[in-house]
């Protein structure tokens, strides 16, 4: 019996010790957005404090670096203003959960709602409802089909991403004098409209120059799917001239697969503009030579504009007395030359 209980004691002690050790191992450096991803209220024009505004915010809790950056940026930008009160609700797992969360937000009577919907079409009716209740809605990135459902729409340019990526690839290949290039594409989640738009922009622009995509695989915006799809793509194409990968987050896996296969005869263009990708481009020691932006800094801008809408003010550099209705960010191409300028916008 003593033998038995001593064994149990030792075993239990070891288990508890391991548990404590592991619990300590969950620590990560807290990643907060850098100063530059918010716009400091540094006096003059729009920055001058105005009427107190309550901004309600909702974005999906997806496990993705880009979405995490959206929420972090929005919170940090709101904190930069003394006249903004920031109320956030978790959007849950799908459109129905987000609708439920938003209805509790409406009952708190915010002055403006900033919303990144799970799906613009499915939450269109919520936009209408809020607008009719007199609460202006700022749609972030995923458009409502109905123009009456939003006061302001601010989004990235998915089609433009494809155009920018293809333009860079065509320029490089023409400069090298490659006549019949093998171009490959690693897309994101294929069922999303944004992926289809990116691919369309890419294909359209390549076609103008008589080029086409030789093989295309769709990953799932995750590092492991990026690695797996790329490993198979590389098998399919023994020689490649250029690759466009839609998303820098899955790009970590894409680059891993490329280095595991010992391939370097091609160059790669990324998408979205993560900090890691920009650092890789700057260091110039991988096949990644450029990335086209789809910046989560749009969340910071959305909060700034929501504040102006709530205060009934326009953008101080524009003539109009109110904020415009639609803003589409340009997709810029980041290369080794300008990476240092953009590094502060990386996520």
């Amino acid at each position, binding site marked *: 019996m003593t033998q038995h209980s001593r064994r149990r004691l030792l075993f239990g002690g070891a288990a508890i010790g*391991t*548990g404590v050790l*592991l619990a*300590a*191992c*969950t*620590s*990560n*450096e*807290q*990643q907060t957005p850098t100063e530059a991803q918010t716009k400091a209220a540094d006096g003059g024009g729009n920055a001058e404090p105005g009427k107190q505004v309550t901004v309600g915010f909702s974005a999906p*809790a*997806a*496990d*993705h*670096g880009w*979405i*995490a950056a959206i929420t972090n940026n929005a919170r940090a930008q709101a904190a930069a203003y003394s006249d903004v009160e920031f109320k956030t609700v978790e959007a849950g797992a799908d459109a129905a959960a987000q609708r439920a969360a938003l209805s509790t937000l409406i009952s708190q009577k915010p002055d403006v709602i900033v919303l990144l919907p799970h799906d613009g079409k499915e939450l269109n009716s919520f936009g209408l409802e809020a607008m009719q209740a007199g609460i202006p809605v700022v749609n972030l990135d995923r458009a409502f089909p109905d123009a009456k459902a939003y006061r302001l729409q601010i989004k990235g340019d998915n089609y433009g991403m494809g155009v920018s990526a293809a333009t860079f690839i065509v320029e490089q290949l023409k400069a090298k004098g490659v006549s019949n290039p093998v171009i490959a594409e690693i897309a994101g989640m*294929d069922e999303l409209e944004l992926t289809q738009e990116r691919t369309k922009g890419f294909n359209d622009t390549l076609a103008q120059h008589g080029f086409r995509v*030789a*093989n*295309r*695989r*769709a990953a*799932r*915006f*995750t*590092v*492991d*799917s*990026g*690695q*797996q*799809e790329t*490993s*198979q*793509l590389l*098998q*399919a194409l*023994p020689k490649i001239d250029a690759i466009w990968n839609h998303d820098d*987050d899955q790009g*970590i*896996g894409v*680059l*891993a*697969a490329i*280095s*595991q296969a010992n391939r370097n005869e091609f160059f790669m263009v990324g998408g979205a503009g993560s900090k*890691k990708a920009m650092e890789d481009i700057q260091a110039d020691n991988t096949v990644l030579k450029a990335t086209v932006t789809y910046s989560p800094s749009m969340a910071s801008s959305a909060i700034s504009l929501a504040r102006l809408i709530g205060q009934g003010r326009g953008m101080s550099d524009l003539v109009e007395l109110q904020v415009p209705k639609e803003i589409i960010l340009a997709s810029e191409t980041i290369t080794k030359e300008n990476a240092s300028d953009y590094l502060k916008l990386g996520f």
Partner: protein
Amino acid sequence: MSDSPSTTKLPAQSPPVDPAETEAAGHRAAPAPAGRLSWWHGDGGEGARRNLALIGVLLILFVIGAATRSDLYSNPDWVWANMLSILKLASVVGVVTVGMTFVIIGGGIDLSVGAIVALAGVWCTTVATQSFGAAGMIFTAIVVGVAVGLVNGTLIAYGRLVPFIATLAMLVAARGLAAEISQKQTQISQNNTINGIASNDLFGIPLLVYILAAVVLAGWVLLNRTTFGRRTVAVGGNPEAARLAGINVKRHTLMLYALSGLCCGIAAIMLTAQATSAQAAMANLYELDAIAAVIIGGTLLSGGRGTIIGSLLGVIIFATITNLFAINGLSTEAQNMVKGGIIVAAVLIQQVQFGSLSQFFRRNRLTTS
């Protein structure tokens, strides 16, 4: 105290209701004498013949590949590299599937494997864990995997939760915890030893393939050549009979889920090495890949029968299909439809193959009348 068999309470799994089924399950569950382990005749033989059919499917897939991309297949170096690439693609899910095979033969199911892989991967790539080096990361991944498996097993064996529900809850909870730890960020592995697991070869064969082979071999020995394995079959075939035969069914069930967690921990290291990073969303739907491979491999979903080699072949068949679609430049959607079709076809063929056709129809008539 917990070791003494309870005489008043029924075990967690209720026995099959159909008397004919009980009889059949009882036959399977009877402790196997040594002679019945022969690989061709007797119990093992059925699995071996089934596996030969799966190898036939693989050969057909190879021929389809060679016919559609003869330009690539004419280069022997490429063919060898491609086969290694298929095995690497299968390696992570393969390791998970070994654990899943044990759980399913033991009459349970583990829906949380993908989430455990993600949690173990995220936990072993935190800044704090990475400071302990490769050994610390491997230790963390394995302990996290086993610990989550033990929680699953405790809930199912002692908390009397249905395996489906307990592991479904764990699926949600483990991914939530992984997202919480990682702050939804992608955690990059800076450790070259870990990353080297996916990029290094030994005698021209990738390390990942050796790991898969070692896990499969260990799983095969454990299932076919140890008391633990025989007890697993007995518990899955008929838990009540197993309990009356003196097996501690609850503790055995607990250990099965811990084993599945261990496999997930090993898989997490392999996947982290492959992607050189980890995130909460990774290993998405691995539970379905693993269960599908187990079913294709001929393991009974109700427990009591199955082979490790069959499950491995199931995983390799799926990886080969992915490869086949990739080299032909076909869409992922078409690939998923074909995979679904193969799962159904495999089960249908198995029903026909091992009884005569007339038996197949007679059984169907019995169930419909």
